[in-house]
């Protein structure tokens, strides 16, 4: 082995992404880019009302409109398909189901009622305008607290708007602790409704071929394998005849982790018409017909001793889940429950999660999914407590941190935190922000009438999702490594990246382990006909779970390669070492055999080792033993203009620990994007409904996805505390930026305005709210 030059190190290096050349030249292929011959277009007629009875549907004019091939009505669809699937089923939960088209009673604006299939998208849209639906409007319930207190019923047959209540922790102990606490703060905290907004709206293309009886579905999805199973059931095509392909997918952020009515409708229409049928959502449809995120009200009580030691934490959370459950809806708020304890030692803790139906778009996973809410509640709570105690918020946090020596750590919510060093991340962040200097500068500027503030968020999140017991459809992941006859390597993975760059990071792992050039490795994902099994990309799981399945397969390849080598070199397999694409004899390193040579032996199979099958391919399913728990410290520095209420975000420091890093470029990108979304929740984004259940922030004109000039350049740093949960030591990074950042902003704004007596402002922090808070603190309405 000494004669051979070691191939370059790849793991941990900022390798430029291999998916980029196609994407920067316009050669990417997203669903709407595909246009098989004879493709028809499907357009949906949706409910304009939040709650109404459909009393008549007249499609006669639409049927006769130019180019129209088919019109699907609720009755027809209800007979020919199964309901839209719900996977997350909690104990005691009400689960009203709906079909892909709704006939009887529509329950949110945007609910599909009729589908038109026509020769092109213009003609389909023309025909949709000719559909006449008669509605009898019914009273709608929009506010979740009102929904609980006897407002109109979303689902009459349930007799209640309550979906489910899930308790967590020890309610009695928490009550006792808070009663006996020297200091208690109480606060209602709103975590507002958000709209995910991937820049590519949803799109699906279904193609049923009557000859072989196969249904191929290209979908802009995060979960091709789950979609295959669920769609086969919904559209009634045997699963083995269904193939789902997620081609290039233009962002997901959780909202493409689902099965949608339009996917079922396209499949049904294609099966009937025996032609390809495409549905592409418009942005305005996306705002009402694709799931929303968050929308949780927290009623928090935090008790402590005078010296700042936490003694108890109790919270009631009301989650407005909208009109129906989608795939994982009900499970999302339970992630909030699981993460209530955050980074602190809290001797008594209890939560109650109340999920409520309202006449709004269903919620489901949106980047962070449950954890940003938990972090927001606790990190706002810590600042409120610090203010009450007159203590520095940093000191208060530090005093209650779980210490680096206390891992693995059992939480009150039944989790085991794998590893952590919360002080290290905080120290690094403090050094970058220059905390002491900032405080004196802040004091100096206050004299001059300028209001600067600094806000902290020390977060921990749960990812690497996860043990199958915790996930409705399984939490494992699968991965295959195939060394081809020529020694080139194909990696097939069940994760389904849509921006996360696994075509690069997985190739880095495989190439380094097998000692081949990265250009000799191809990573295939997102096609159920090529990748035999998988779960998908969400919950920051791809590397920690999918990457581990890959490592397990690489281990198997190594072992098998050694058997071939041992047989060929007539030594014991135990005497061999696998390194850099060569197998060599430990005691005689000049005796080597290369991977392509071994591949030839394996596939020619003329002289097989005993008990060894031909071929050099391995598949592994990895079932994680635990979640992983990334953590970090986020710091925001803001200046607030007390005349206009405008907030200037001057600096944002993000110190994150996601364990071992395979590609720092990708990690940095994930954090940037996550921060943008978390900061935007604090400053820019809010889904607003009127009393009739109409979405007022119903387009990009009124819902402020941040633009380039609305964000600063972030200051990033990392600490590295590997996890022992998986052999890569990697924790996951897709959501950390979003989870940690939001409370840092709100804390900074409140810190800036503290001298004026402001204690809290509800998100999003639009200028009027800031001004109202200042006015209220001064003791009078504006």
């Amino acid at each position, binding site marked *: 082995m000494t004669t051979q030059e070691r191939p370059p190190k790849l793991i941990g290096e900022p390798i430029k992404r291999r998916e980029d050349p196609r994407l920067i030249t316009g050669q990417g292929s997203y669903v709407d880019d595909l246009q098989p011959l004879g493709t028809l277009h499907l357009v949906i007629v949706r409910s304009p009302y939040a709650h109404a009875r459909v009393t008549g549907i007249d499609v006669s004019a639409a049927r006769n409109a130019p180019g129209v091939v088919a019109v699907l009505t609720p009755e027809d669809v209800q007979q020919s398909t199964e309901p839209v699937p719900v996977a997350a089923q909690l104990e005691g939960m009400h689960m009203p189901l709906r079909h892909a088209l709704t006939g009887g009673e529509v329950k949110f604006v945007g609910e599909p009622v009729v589908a038109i299939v026509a020769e092109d998208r213009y003609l389909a849209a023309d025909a949709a305008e000719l559909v006449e639906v008669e509605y009898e409007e019914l009273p709608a319930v929009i506010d979740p607290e009102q929904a609980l207190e006897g407002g109109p019923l979303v689902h009459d047959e349930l007799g209640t708007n309550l979906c489910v209540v899930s308790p967590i922790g020890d309610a009695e102990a928490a009550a006792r602790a808070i009663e006996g606490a020297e200091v208690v703060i109480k606060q209602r905290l709103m975590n507002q409704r958000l709209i995910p907004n991937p820049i*590519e709206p949803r799109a699906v293309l279904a193609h049923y071929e009557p000859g072989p009886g196969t249904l191929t579905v290209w979908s802009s999805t995060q979960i091709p394998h789950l979609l295959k199973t669920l769609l086969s059931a919904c559209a009634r095509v045997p699963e083995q005849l269904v193939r789902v392909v997620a081609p290039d997918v233009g962002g997901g*952020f959780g909202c493409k982790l689902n099965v949608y009515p339009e996917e079922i409708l396209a499949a049904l229409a294609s099966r009937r018409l025996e032609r390809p049928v495409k549905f592409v959502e418009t942005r305005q449809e996306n705002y009402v017909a694709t799931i929303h995120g968050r929308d949780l009200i927290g009623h928090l009580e935090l008790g402590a001793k005078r010296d700042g030691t936490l003694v108890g934490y109790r919270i009631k959370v009301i989650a407005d889940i909208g009109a129906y459950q989608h795939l994982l809806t009900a499970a999302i708020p339970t992630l909030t429950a699981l993460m209530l304890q955050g980074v602190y030692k809290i001797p008594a803790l209890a939560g109650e999660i109340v999920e409520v139906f309202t006449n709004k778009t269903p919620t489901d996973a949106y980047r962070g999914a449950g954890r940003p809410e938990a972090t927001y509640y606790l990190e706002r709570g810590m600042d409120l407590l610090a203010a009450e105690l007159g203590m520095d918020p940093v000191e208060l946090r530090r005093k209650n941190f779980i210490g680096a020596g206390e891992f693995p750590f059992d939480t009150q919510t039944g989790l085991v935190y794998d590893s952590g060093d919360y002080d290290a991340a905080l120290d690094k962040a403090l050094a970058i922000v220059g905390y002491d200097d900032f405080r004196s500068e802040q004091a100096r500027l206050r004299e001059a009438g300028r209001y600067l503030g600094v806000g902290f968020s020390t977060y921990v999140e749960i990812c690497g999702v996860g043990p199958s017991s915790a996930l409705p459809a399984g939490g494992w992941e699968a991965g295959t490594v195939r060394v081809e006859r020529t020694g080139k390597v194909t990696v097939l993975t069940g994760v389904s990246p849509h921006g996360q760059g696994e075509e690069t990071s997985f190739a880095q792992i495989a190439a380094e382990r097998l000692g081949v050039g990265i250009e000799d490795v191809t990573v295939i994902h997102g096609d159920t006909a090529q990748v035999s099994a998988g779960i998908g990309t969400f919950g920051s799981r791809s590397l920690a779970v999918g990457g581990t399945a890959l490592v397990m397969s690489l281990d198997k390849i190594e072992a098998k390669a050694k058997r071939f080598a041992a047989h060929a070199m007539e030594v014991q397999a135990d005497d061999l070492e696998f390194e850099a694409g060569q197998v060599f004899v430990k005691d005689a390193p000049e005796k080597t055999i290369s991977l392509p040579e071994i591949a030839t032996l394996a596939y020619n199979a003329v002289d097989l080792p005993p008990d060894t099958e031909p071929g050099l391919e391995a598949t592994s399913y990895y079932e994680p033993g635990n979640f992983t728990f990334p953590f970090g410290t986020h710091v925001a520095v803001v200046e607030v203009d007390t005349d206009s209420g405008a907030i200037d975000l001057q600096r944002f420091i993000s110190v994150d620990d996601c364990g071992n890093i395979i590609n720092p470029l990708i990690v940095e990108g994930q954090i940037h994007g996550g921060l943008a979304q978390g900061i935007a929740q604090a400053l820019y984004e809010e889904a607003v409904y009127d009393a009739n259940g109409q979405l007022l922030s119903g387009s990009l004109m009124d819902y402020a996805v941040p*633009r380039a000039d609305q964000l600063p350049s972030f200051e990033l740093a990392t600490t590295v505390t590997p996890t022992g949960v998986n052999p890569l030591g990697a924790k996951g990074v897709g959501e950390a930026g979003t989870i940690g950042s939001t409370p840092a902003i709100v804390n900074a704004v409140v810190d800036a305005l503290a001298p004026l007596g402001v204690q809290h402002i509800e998100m999003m922090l639009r200028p009027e709210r800031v001004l109202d808070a200042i006015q209220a603190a001064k003791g009078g309405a504006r």
Partner: protein
Amino acid sequence: MPEISVTVNGVEHREEVEPRLLLVHLLRERLRLTGTHVGCDTSQCGACTVVLDGKSVKSCTMLAVQADGSELLTIEGLGKDGLHPVQQGFWDQHGLQCGYCTPGMIMAAYQLLQDDADPSEEAIRHGLRGNLCRCTGYQNIVRAVQQAARATS
């Protein structure tokens, strides 16, 4: 149906188009240049940005007939002879993730640099405010444009 003539990436096309056909659909569906994307229906996102007669335009806000007689440059034409410095910048600086905003973003950045060869960070951020990216937080896009500016100046 009116007949129009447009030159796209140096190639002249004559097409009969319905008066209501959007330019972006002419590009994507007739000419099969699918690198130009559609991300919204209120002209807010910029995913459809192309360069028309030396100006960046949102091709979803224009009718194909309005482009009659124009010269268009789309993402497919930008890097005809190897990557353009703006494309190179996006690759080197990890200026994209899902890639959906990217063609529009690159075309907008290309035109920005045509108009101002050495823009400040502020000017870049301001100049790209018509283009939404949900993945990157823009920081690496800014770096990409800065790199391209250095490479071309």
